[in-house]
């Protein structure tokens, strides 16, 4: 079944298209400031290796918990204190993707990363952020396959 990405994320992408580079950076830093690390009830340090995003150099971890019949809440940790882009992206996913229907989560295109961070994103950063998105989508697809 094909689906559109979560409306809250689509709205954010539309909004970002009107921002210049400096405004976009300000906006993303606000997200990074709102980043909340995974609660202890979900995971405690040291975080398990299988939750680590392999391609992310900011030591990002992703978890999912069930939230209703067709949705999940995603949790994140970013262990590199300088991983501010990773933190902003995790906060965006938490605010716009957590709680969305699983098919919508699976339908998020990879180029959303570039729409948010701009084309001048370095390949290393792009790869890490895509890795975070793919980890979230992996949870959504797995849950959908379980018939939740």
């Amino acid at each position: 079944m094909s689906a559109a990405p979560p409306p809250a994320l689509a709205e954010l992408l539309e909004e970002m298209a009107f921002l210049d580079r400096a405004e976009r950076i300000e906006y993303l830093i606000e997200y990074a400031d709102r980043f909340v690390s995974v609660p202890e009830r979900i995971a405690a340090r040291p975080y398990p290796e299988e939750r680590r995003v392999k391609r992310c150099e900011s030591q990002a971890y992703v978890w999912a918990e069930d939230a209703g019949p067709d949705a999940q809440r995603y949790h994140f940790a970013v262990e590199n204190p300088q991983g501010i882009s990773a933190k902003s992206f995790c906060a965006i996913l938490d605010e716009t993707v957590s709680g969305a229907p699983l098919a919508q989560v699976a339908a998020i295109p990879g180029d959303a990363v570039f729409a948010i961070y701009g084309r001048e994103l370095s390949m290393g950063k792009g790869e890490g952020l895509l890795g975070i998105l793919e980890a979230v989508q992996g949870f959504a697809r797995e849950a959908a396959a379980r018939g939740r």
Partner: protein
Amino acid sequence: MSDIASRGYANPDVLVSTEWVAAHLDDPAVRIIESNEDQLLYPSGHLPGAVQVDWAVDLNDQLRRDYLRRDGFEALMARIGVTRETVCVFYGDRNNWWATYAYWVFQLFGHDNARVMDGGRQKWEQEGRPLVREVPSYAATAYGAPERDDAPVRAFRDDVLAHLEAGGQLVDVRSPQEYSGERLHMPDFPNEGALRGGHIPGARNIPWARAADPADGTFRDAAELRDIYLNEQGLSPDADTIAYCRIGERSSHTWFVLTHLLGFANVRNYDGSWTEWGNLVNVPIEK
């Protein structure tokens, strides 16, 4: 990490410590310059008084694949309030990866009044030193730059071909997976893509970050660096050397290490790197 002066570097004056920088934050003869991979870091907090030089926006020509030219460099220097006498101190994220890149680009215009803050952002933050969000502004300077002179520190593809044919020393500073050709680039990342995988024949694979101590981002001392580059990999400091990676940023870090810390006689950075070589028609590739 020990004092910079005691580490046996060929040219220890190119490095300054976080303590030195902390004592020179208000020194009008010094300009602190942050260059990062992560574009969000500087605006989220930087050293008091530091300006940002951004690799994508400030150092690259926005049309052709090249660095800025003399007028662009002069405008950049005017904007950040630097004269030819100003000591520019670079620092940044990821073991000073982009800081050494900016340092290298400054050398194309002969601004050798330049230093790198050992340990970069990582060490500064670990030591609990202050970061501010306020962006400073400095009175514009009139900076008279010479024409850009690429030849001493920069290699183009024809230079690399000639160097290769002459059996010259090459260092590929990418990851082992990129070197072997197992990993090309991200499918969604056409900007840094290559049609072929592998490496330039004869290149030694020495990933750039081996030169830094991951604990605090400082450079390893000269004995440790010699162990890696000379003893383990067999490089000769007297032989002409060309370093490359994917777009020339990681290899500028190795260029800095070989040139200034180990005193190699003639090192050039091939900034075309794998995104050029891996797309060229009919050049030799090894896997």
